[in-house]
């Protein structure tokens, strides 16, 4: 069932009424509801496009975290054929917050990596809400090495509130694992295409997003800290998350203007969760276009290009 966000209340009411009518009509086949239903739905559509035409940064955070939003596995299942999950870091554990493996993206074999939040309560727990432990990053490193050895492009799908802040995670070197994963991204002689599909949460995200091309779904967010965290530190008041969301410039549009992401992939009116298939196909097209730019490019050049891209992020023009 579709869940509504607080600012979608008016839409929820209209769509709820339309649904009620449909249920009533089911019991009474003589009832003619067609005109009324389509009127309600038209009205709901109009409200949606008004709301989504001017989403505030905070509302984008809400959409990015929407429980019905397409998650990494869904994206992988739609875009990747012959997906063959590979498991484990070979040192300690299999971390199910990070999914990865081999597969075919529009025929070409690739290595895919994604952070999976989970679709229902049980799965969310199993996947730790997409918050990886060191083993998740170490598995990612292992699979990136595999990609490099067999000359396969790497596609990553980033969607995490952040790396897991847990006792064991710290003891087993969360910081080191993230550092090594970022470092591995920078070493690869194959193209890395990262897609931010929901939340790009800080160090937990950069470890899989240090890519040649970074794509971002229109209502995704990518930030050094969550608005809530930022508000509680700088405003000393977690209720100021809306202000922090605006100040952090974490929307896809902001990041495009800061040259941190390379392309923004449009979502349907009302957000990706209202038409997952269309969203995922648009993302696939953007990935294909990004990958094509590296066809025939020398591995050393691919690596150098990635390095130069990140080196530039601090050499912005002086005012």
């Amino acid at each position: 069932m579709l869940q509504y966000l607080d600012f979608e209340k008016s839409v929820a009411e209209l769509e709820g009424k339309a649904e009620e009518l449909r249920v009533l009509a089911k019991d009474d086949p003589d009832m003619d509801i067609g005109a009324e239903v389509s009127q309600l739905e038209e009205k709901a559509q109009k409200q949606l496009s008004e709301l989504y035409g001017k989403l505030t940064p905070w509302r984008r955070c809400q959409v990015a975290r929407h429980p019905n939003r397409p998650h990494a596995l869904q994206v992988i299942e739609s875009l990747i054929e012959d997906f063959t999950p590979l498991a484990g870091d070979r040192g300690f554990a299999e971390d199910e917050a990070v999914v990865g493996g081999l597969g075919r993206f529009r025929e070409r074999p690739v290595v895919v990596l994604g952070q999976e939040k989970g679709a229902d309560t049980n799965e969310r727990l199993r996947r730790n809400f997409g918050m990886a432990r060191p083993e998740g990053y170490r598995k990612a490193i292992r699979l990136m090495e595999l990609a490099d050895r067999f000359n396969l492009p790497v596609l990553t799908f980033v969607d995490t509130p952040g790396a897991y802040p847990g006792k064991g995670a710290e003891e087993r070197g969360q910081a080191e694992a993230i550092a090594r994963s970022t470092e591995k991204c920078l070493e690869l002689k194959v193209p890395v295409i990262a897609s931010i599909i929901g939340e790009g949460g800080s160090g937990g995200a950069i470890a899989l997003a240090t890519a040649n091309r970074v794509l971002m779904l229109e209502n995704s967010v990518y930030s050094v800290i969550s608005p809530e965290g930022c508000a509680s530190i700088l405003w000393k008041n977690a209720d100021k998350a809306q202000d922090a969301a605006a100040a952090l410039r974490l929307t896809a549009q902001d990041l495009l203007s800061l040259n941190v992401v390379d392309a923004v992939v449009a979502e349907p009116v009302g957000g990706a969760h209202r038409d997952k298939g269309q969203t995922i196909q648009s993302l696939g097209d953007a990935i294909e276009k990004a990958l094509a730019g590296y066809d025939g490019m020398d591995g050393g050049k691919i690596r150098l290009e990635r390095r130069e891209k990140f080196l530039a992020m601090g050499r912005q023009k002086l005012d």
Partner: protein
Amino acid sequence: MNWITNYVRPKLGTLLNRRETPDNLWVKCDECSQMVFHRELAEAQHVCPYCSHHMGIIPEERFGRLFDKGEFETIAQPETATDPLQFRDEKKYTDRLKDARKKTSRDDAVLIGKGKISGVMTVAAASDFNFMAGSMGMAVGNAFLKAAETAVEAKAPLIIFSAAGGARMQEGILSLMQMPRTTIAVQMVREAGLPYISVFTHPTTGGVTASYAMLGDVQISEPDALICFAGPRVIEQTIREKLPEGFQRAEYLLEHGMLDMVVDRRKMAGEIGKVLRMLMRLPAETAALPDPNGETLSGIVEDKSPASAKSDKT
């Protein structure tokens, strides 16, 4: 579900106040509460002579005792755009920067020095925790890249002393991007076949720990330094249990395999020099060096600008 908030409230506030008050000649140790005469404390490199508690130390003083005879050249840093996001919370970022610059007399958090350690020409960079908690923004990223480039040019090893509350939130995503950038700095030194020693000091947290700091060929920490990705408070809130004594402290990380050694600040220069000479395949140092803890120090403490340190900063 909250994201990770990588931030540690500095315990250094008190230390700062007494630094700013020249009349306050006695410093109370936070650990053992003993009163220490300021000159004695400076001579001990801000390590409590009673309980060996390592207090904050500014980069100039650290370098004064790290490099042979306290001699080093300050390496100029590239100019960096300020306030890329026009960030403001309760206060404008530009005002916070202004305050930090006034307080520390430096443009941003990092000082780069070049000089000899145990006779080995070396480039060192150190963060000043007093400058916005040593947090990593574009200027800090540029500083470490400059330090790495200087090391590669001089065929010299690189040493970075970290002290940071994490990323510079006021620079938003651009502060996060300094994680890959500083990683590239490490790669440049490595590709040149030169050693990179990472030294953790209290505290080193967040995106700083999770990038260049954890990528050392050799990783050393000062005693009892807090080293973490997520801060202890965040973890306690997440797992809703109390953390064990000494959790995320240097000795704990040593025990868990994340560090090579924990070294007292007063022995740091010697230990680094010994390691560097071996990594650079140089013979052991035979001739007794002049005592680096000699006369230069009091000069540094009095006027905060080592007379022996040349500066090419423009």
